[in-house]
């Protein structure tokens, strides 16, 4: 079903939410993505992914206490739900099993920057 598929970017966001537990919120997630992967992401893109994840039930969120640094505006903190964990595990397993099925010949001689 389309609605429960985990997209590549969504998976990344989901993983980062886990990494940042319990302080995962929009901007922090973006910073972490940029640090971990070097990808440039708009804040809006992260928010959009979070909203999709929430629609699919993979994350839940709650508004945190107000802080001074954002002019008293509250952050929305995200946590992975059981469904989210499930989806991540499925993806992980699928990837591992596929990886293991690749014959050694297919990868032989391939290395970063190596010549053929």
């Amino acid at each position, binding site marked *: 079903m389309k609605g429960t598929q985990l997209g590549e970017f969504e998976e990344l966001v989901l993983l980062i939410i886990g990494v940042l537990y319990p302080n995962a919120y929009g901007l922090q997630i973006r910073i972490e993505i940029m640090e971990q992967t070097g990808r440039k992401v*708009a804040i*809006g893109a992260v*928010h959009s992914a979070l909203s999709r994840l929430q629609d699919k039930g993979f994350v839940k969120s709650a*508004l945190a206490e107000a802080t001074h640094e954002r002019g008293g*505006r*509250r*952050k*929305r903190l995200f946590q992975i739900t059981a469904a989210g964990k499930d989806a991540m595990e499925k993806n992980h397993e699928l990837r591992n099993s596929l990886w293991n099925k690749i014959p050694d010949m297919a990868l032989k001689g391939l290395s970063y920057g190596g010549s053929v």
Partner: protein
Amino acid sequence: MADQSEIAPPKLADRLLGWFCKDELLEEIKGDLHEFYGMERTEKSAWKANWSYWYHMLHFLRPFALKNKTQKQTSIAMYRSYIKTGFRNLKRQKLASFINVFGLATTIAISLVVYVLIDRQFSLDAFHADADQIFAVQSRIDWNGTEETWGRTPLQLGPSLKAEIPQVEEMTRVTRKLATVRFEDNVFNEVLTYADPSYLSIFSFPLIQGQAESLKGKKNIILSKASAEKYFPADDPIGKDLKILIDGKAFLFSVTGVADGFPETASFTFDFLLPFENLKEMYNIDLQGWKNIKTQSVFTFVKLDQVSSNQQVSPRLASYRDVVNDINPDWQIRQFGLYPLPSLARNGQYVREPYASGSTPEILIMFAIISLLLLASACFNYVNISVSMAQKRLSEIAIRKVVGGQRKQLITQFLTENFVLCFVATILGALVGIYAFLPGINVLFSGSGYTINIFQDPAIPGFLIILFVALSLISGAYPAFYISAFKPVAILKGKQNLAGKNRLGKVFLTMQFFLTFVAIVSGLLFTDLNEFQEEQDWGYQASDLLVVPVEDPAQYQALKLFATQSPGIINTAGSGSQIGRSFVESAIKITDEKYTVRTFNISPDYLDVMNVRVIEGRDFDENLSSDQNKSLIVNKAFLNQISDSENPFDQPVDIEGETFNIVGVTENFHFDDFFSPITPAIFRLVPEERYNYISMRTTPGGLNDTEALVKAEWTKQFPDSPYAGFFQEEVFDNFFNSTGSLKAVMNFVAMVAIILSAMGLFGLVSLFIIKKLKEYSIRKVLGANGTHIVKLVSKQFIILMSIAMLVAAPLSYMIFDTLFAQVFPGSMDTVGISPFLLTTLILLAVIFVTISSHIIQVLRMNPVKNLRLE
């Protein structure tokens, strides 16, 4: 919280976000964005952070964050459809669109140029950093009971202000003087600016070479970029020695700086900037003096510590006024005043001898009015034509209404279509204005050098956007509301009587023709004035007269000697100032009344050589010793305005303490142009040392040959001095050029006005004929002949136009009479009634041509075709 308010992100971006973003998401999104902005600001420059803020804010334009997305999307689609129909209509109704776009674009281009001209006037000198802290000190003088503002102040005033008033941060005295500047073979007469060293820190004239401090060295000189290129086209000017020659004495100055090119909004600049203290030995001026006479006074500028200090400093100037008044009992100053730099040039024309002056406001106001009227005219056309063109779209309107379109939506539709048209017109107008009209203005008014850089001057796009929105609303509102009110049933039954009697359209058209009338009259008037000037009696004989400026008696004598040996030269005379080229004003007293009069210091035979006609009394006599320092010859204006008494020859005239008697009166002659009233002028004899010009009367037609000889002789004898001879008949060329340019501009405006009103008439006549097509067809079927139809079509338009012209003729006469009274006094008396008659004829021709094209169409049509469509 405190630091959050310090680094608030762009407000507009925030507001925009609030507008499109869902309310429930706004808090967290805004929080993230603000926090992000705070981080950015600590590491990046403000504009980079702002830019990035905008970037991220706009990235929230995603479906998940948008308010009420379904409704927004349909309305966006709706607008897209409106814009599409708008473009289709532009394409389908080619003639109407062309008339509208052409009219609007032309007038937008004209308005843009006028805006630039006016904007430049209001931004004169504003480029100086702290311009509002800089003030000129000027004096208000009691002048026979009325107050006059004089640009100059005593020399010691500036230094005293700086020393004694703490709010005066800096002070510079400035004055300009003529001298010859020489470097190797480059010899020219130049205007030199003498100023205290703080000149360069008060005014923002950055140097590209050298340092501003170098002005402190007494024998240093700073050049403008232009002068540096003129004297040192190939070399580095720094360190070179310039020779400055004044009355035969040479002074050496070393170039220590070159200023960058000056901004076009600078009302004053300099070619050569020299330390002020040099005036003492170069001109023998007492730099500490409190004397308030012309040769001993200068322009004084101060920079205050803050703008509001003006209030505290102004009252303190009174004590200096008392000091000056004690020393100059004849010239009582009422007040010294501080005049802010940004408006100094604009008000320059109300000041006697201003340091800076801008252009005549009357001309600019006239241009502004013209461009507004043309805009209005283009809007009339638009309204008339779009109402008439709605005929073709009546069914569309009816169907839209029948299938449920609300009136509001129709209004929006028409306004949107109008925005499309105005948008196209604005873009075109901006291009035409920037790439055609502005360069044209620069050619006509040589030296104005206006440029527009849309990307540097945010006011220009701002002006265009305002103009665009205003035009769209003004021209679109009437058609939009009017057309959208039609009843669909009436339209579909064919009963909609389009435009009714269209009174409004007729009123517009009448007004438009009125305005066109005024425009054509003005074009003709300027043309007439130009011709009039060329035929004027100058009051003396300007032809066959070669004038050469001289610097010292040696040059004068050498040329005089050369003239006696040249068969081509009949006779010569010397003078301190030359009629039409220069004059000095002197203050005189007659029976304790003070006047300023133009003074020409001359040699005894000057009037004879110039052919200035003596009408009463006698010419100067070389052999009478009393003539040397006791006699005056005055012009007729002097006689009429100043000496009322029966016998002016007995009335003594006091000139700066010396008493003179009038011995002769000359016919009036023109010194500025042909419209300024001729003011009182006097001639007096001065010794040879004071001659600055030698005038040579040549044999008729021998001017060019003689000049070649004189020039050759000059370069042979005086290699140190530039040859600056000129023909007397060219002295008014500047003036001719400027009225010539005005003539060109006004004729162009008249052309545009004619085209616009012809288009307007065309639109209205087509509307009229569309309405009456069936009537004409029936008449033709029943046997109406051509003349009958012609009468029917043209009758009411002819009546309308006659009314317009009957009103316009006297009214425009009055308008120009008052307008020209300011700019070219006395000129209306000379032109008479012919421009008004000619304008009437031109307009009648335009009306005839426009209407007849329609009449021919009606006459040629097959009536059956129109009736069969029923």
